[in-house]
Structure formats: structure tokens, C-alpha cells
């Protein structure tokens, strides 16, 4: 996904420390602390409605951004034909089977989505940590990577193994089978998580001592953020509603940096003059429209199916999410013609492409 920098980086951050830290997890931590301190532990309708309104501007565009990145050029489609063309056909088949057999197929299809989702969160946490580690010069070797991935995935597994009632739960209008874990398993995973955290901190201190400087906090911010989202965050009812929003915000920021980096590099070669602000708004507008089409319009196309709307919408949402998980696995591997990987650039590099930063 990443190449070593071809020239010394002007900054560790894409834009600046405050904005990067806020969008990568800082803002979510502030909101978590505020909701934990000042609200009761019950979800209120305003939280659901606020999260729902914000999802149009953040969550849906985050899905659309992956689709846009993959399908925006025929060359991308040719690089990953199975994901680009085969996967949608497979998912249409899965949706058809789920709607045809809502009692037999839909529960497993929706469960696949619900299990894969936290795995996807974890993958994103590791990816962003690796990105900032590379940008800061922190070498992630075999053991550092093992400590990081063990820590991140153990937060996911510990959360999953948390003992809860043995009854199946209703989600998206279908009964979700419960996966049972023995009580000791959750405790074991917490112990593994603590051991991995200790190992990771050891590597950080060792690096800081060798380099005679502290490791920038943003390198560890994604892992800390995931810890809060997955453990105390899921126990805080009001905050729980906003976790997908913050995951999407984190994703959108990196995807935006990628898109702008690519566009600015291309335009520098072509001599085109477009501002970063213009490109950003154009990209956001397309992704807002794409997200609305995917999550508001598409589920309504199934109005004729003789099932409760929540079930058809839930199955469609599961398919869109699974498509996102697959596509996310390939879009960061797409080849580009730019000399420097867009993910190793920053706002100063973009503006150096003879493009005005402000308008």
C-alpha cells in the first residue's frame, strides 16, 4: 500500500496536527468523554436522529468513496475484475436468496455482515497506524506489527466474546444467531490485549530512546481510539450510536487525502488549474449523491418484495456493507502513475503542484 518517501516529508500530517488528530480519533474521544459524563446510559431519539442526519454527510459518502475510487476508471476495474464485476453479481445472488428465504438465508447473511464489520474496523485501525508510522519514520518490523495486530484484534475479539444473554437477538428485522463463548475466553482476550499493549509500548519507548525523541502521539491514536470504541464505547449507549460516524469520518479523511493527492499529481502533469477546495467539494458532492442512492434510494427499490421493509432494507444494507469490506481490501493496492504515493504527501505537496490552496 505504501512506498517509502522519495523526498523528505514536509510534515507528518496531511493537513496539520489538530485536524489530523481530530479526524483520526481525537474528536470521537472528546465526544465519548462528554457523553459518558453528561448523559444517562440510555439511547434517546435525538441521538438516533442526529446520527441518522450526519450519516447522510459522512457515513454514506464513506461507502460511496470506495465505490468511486474503484469504478472511476476502467483501468481500475481491469486491475481487479473479480472484485469489480464478479462480487456485485455474487451479492445480488445473496440478496435474492436472503429475500427468497428470509428465515433460512437472511440471518446468516446479516450475521456475516455483523461479524465482518468489527474486523473491518480493526483492519482500518491497523492500516492508519501503519500509515502514520511510515510518515513518522517509525519502523514497523515483524514483532512491532505482531504486537500492534494482536492488540487491535484482541479488542475486537474481547468485545465479541463479552458474555451476554443466550437468546438470539433481532437485528434489521431478522433473528441473529448468537455465537457462544465460554466466560473465561473474554478474560483471556483481555489478558492478551494487555500483553500486546505492553509489548507495543516497549517498542515505542525503545524507538524513542534510540531516536532521542518521542514518537508522535498520532501513531498510537488509532489504536487508542479503537480501544475506546470497542470496550467502554459499546457500554455507553449514547456514544454507541455515533461510532460508525467516527469510523466513517476517519476513513473519509484518508480517502480524501488519497483522492486529492492523485488529482493534484495528475493536474500538475497536465497543467490544469483546479483548487484543492474545488476538487474536495466535487468529490464530496459525488460521494454524497452516491451514498444517498445506495442507502436511501436502493432499499426502496425492493418495495414490491412481500416482506417487512426493515428486513429488505437490512438485507440490502448488509450487501452494501459486505461489498464495501471487499472493495476496501483492494482499492489501496491500485497502481497509480504518480511519482510519490498520494498517502505519503501532504497539503504542502498538493499546493506545490501549481494549484492554489485557497480560493
Amino acid at each position, binding site marked *: 500500500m505504501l512506498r517509502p518517501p522519495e523526498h523528505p516529508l514536509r510534515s507528518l500530517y496531511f493537513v496539520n496536527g489538530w485536524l489530523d488528530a481530530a479526524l483520526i480519533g481525537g474528536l470521537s474521544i472528546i465526544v465519548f468523554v462528554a457523553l459518558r459524563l453528561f448523559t444517562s446510559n440510555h439511547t434517546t431519539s435525538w441521538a*438516533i436522529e442526529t446520527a441518522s442526519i450526519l450519516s447522510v454527510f459522512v457515513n454514506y459518502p464513506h461507502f460511496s468513496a470506495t465505490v468511486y475510487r474503484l469504478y472511476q476508471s476502467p483501468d481500475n476495474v481491469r486491475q481487479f475484475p473479480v472484485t469489480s464485476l464478479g462480487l456485485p453479481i455474487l451479492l445480488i445472488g445473496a440478496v435474492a436468496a436472503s429475500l427468497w428465504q428470509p428465515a433460512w438465508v437472511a440471518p446468516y447473511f446479516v450475521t456475516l455482515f455483523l461479524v465482518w464489520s468489527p474486523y473491518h*474496523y480493526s483492519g482500518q485501525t491497523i492500516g492508519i497506524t501503519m500509515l502514520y508510522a511510515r510518515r513518522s519514520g517509525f519502523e514497523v518490523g515483524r514483532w512491532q506489527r505482531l504486537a500492534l495486530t494482536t492488540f487491535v484484534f484482541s479488542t475486537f475479539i474481547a468485545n465479541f466474546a463479552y458474555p451476554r444473554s443466550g437468546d438470539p437477538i433481532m437485528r434489521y428485522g431478522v433473528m441473529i444467531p448468537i455465537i457462544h463463548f465460554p466466560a473465561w475466553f473474554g478474560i483471556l482476550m483481555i489478558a492478551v490485549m494487555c500483553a500486546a499493549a505492553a509489548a507495543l509500548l516497549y517498542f515505542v519507548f525503545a524507538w524513542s530512546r534510540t531516536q532521542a525523541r518521542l514518537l508522535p502521539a498520532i501513531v498510537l491514536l488509532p489504536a487508542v481510539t479503537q480501544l475506546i470504541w470497542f470496550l467502554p464505547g459499546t457500554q455507553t449507549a449514547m456514544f454507541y*450510536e455515533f461510532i460508525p460516524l467516527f469510523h466513517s469520518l476517519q476513513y473519509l479523511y484518508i480517502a480524501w487525502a488519497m483522492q486529492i493527492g492523485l488529482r493534484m499529481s495528475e493536474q500538475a502533469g497536465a497543467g490544469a488549474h483546479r483548487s484543492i477546495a474545488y476538487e474536495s467539494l466535487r468529490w464530496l458532492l459525488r460521494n454524497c449523491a452516491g451514498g444517498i442512492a445506495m442507502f436511501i434510494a436502493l432499499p426502496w427499490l425492493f418495495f414490491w418484495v412481500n416482506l417487512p421493509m426493515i428486513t429488505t432494507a437490512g438485507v440490502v444494507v448488509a450487501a452494501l456493507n459486505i461489498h464495501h469490506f471487499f472493495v476496501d481490501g483492494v482499492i489501496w493496492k491500485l497502481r497509480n502513475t504518480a511519482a510519490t504515493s498520494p498517502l505519503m504527501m501532504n497539503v504542502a505537496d498538493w499546493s506545490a503542484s501549481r494549484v492554489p490552496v485557497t480560493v
Partner: protein
Amino acid sequence: MKKLLLMGAIIIALGAAAAAVQLVFSPLVYAGCPVTTPPPAPPP
């Protein structure tokens, strides 16, 4: 600058209209289910 303001206004208007439709009609919002990738587990 004019173009930027126009695009910003379109995004806000489009998003507001979509959010209103969603709040009124979405069965997932009624049911309190997150309409996008959900967090790992519901609060017990």
C-alpha cells in the same frame, strides 16, 4: 469562489432533503438500527 459556494449549497440542500426523507421513511431509523456499518456490539 461563486462555484464553491454553489457546490457547498448543493451538498447541504441535497443532504438535508435526503436526511428528511430518511427520518420520515426509513424503517431502520424507526428501529434504532444504525443504517451503516454498525459498531461491534450493542450495549448489554
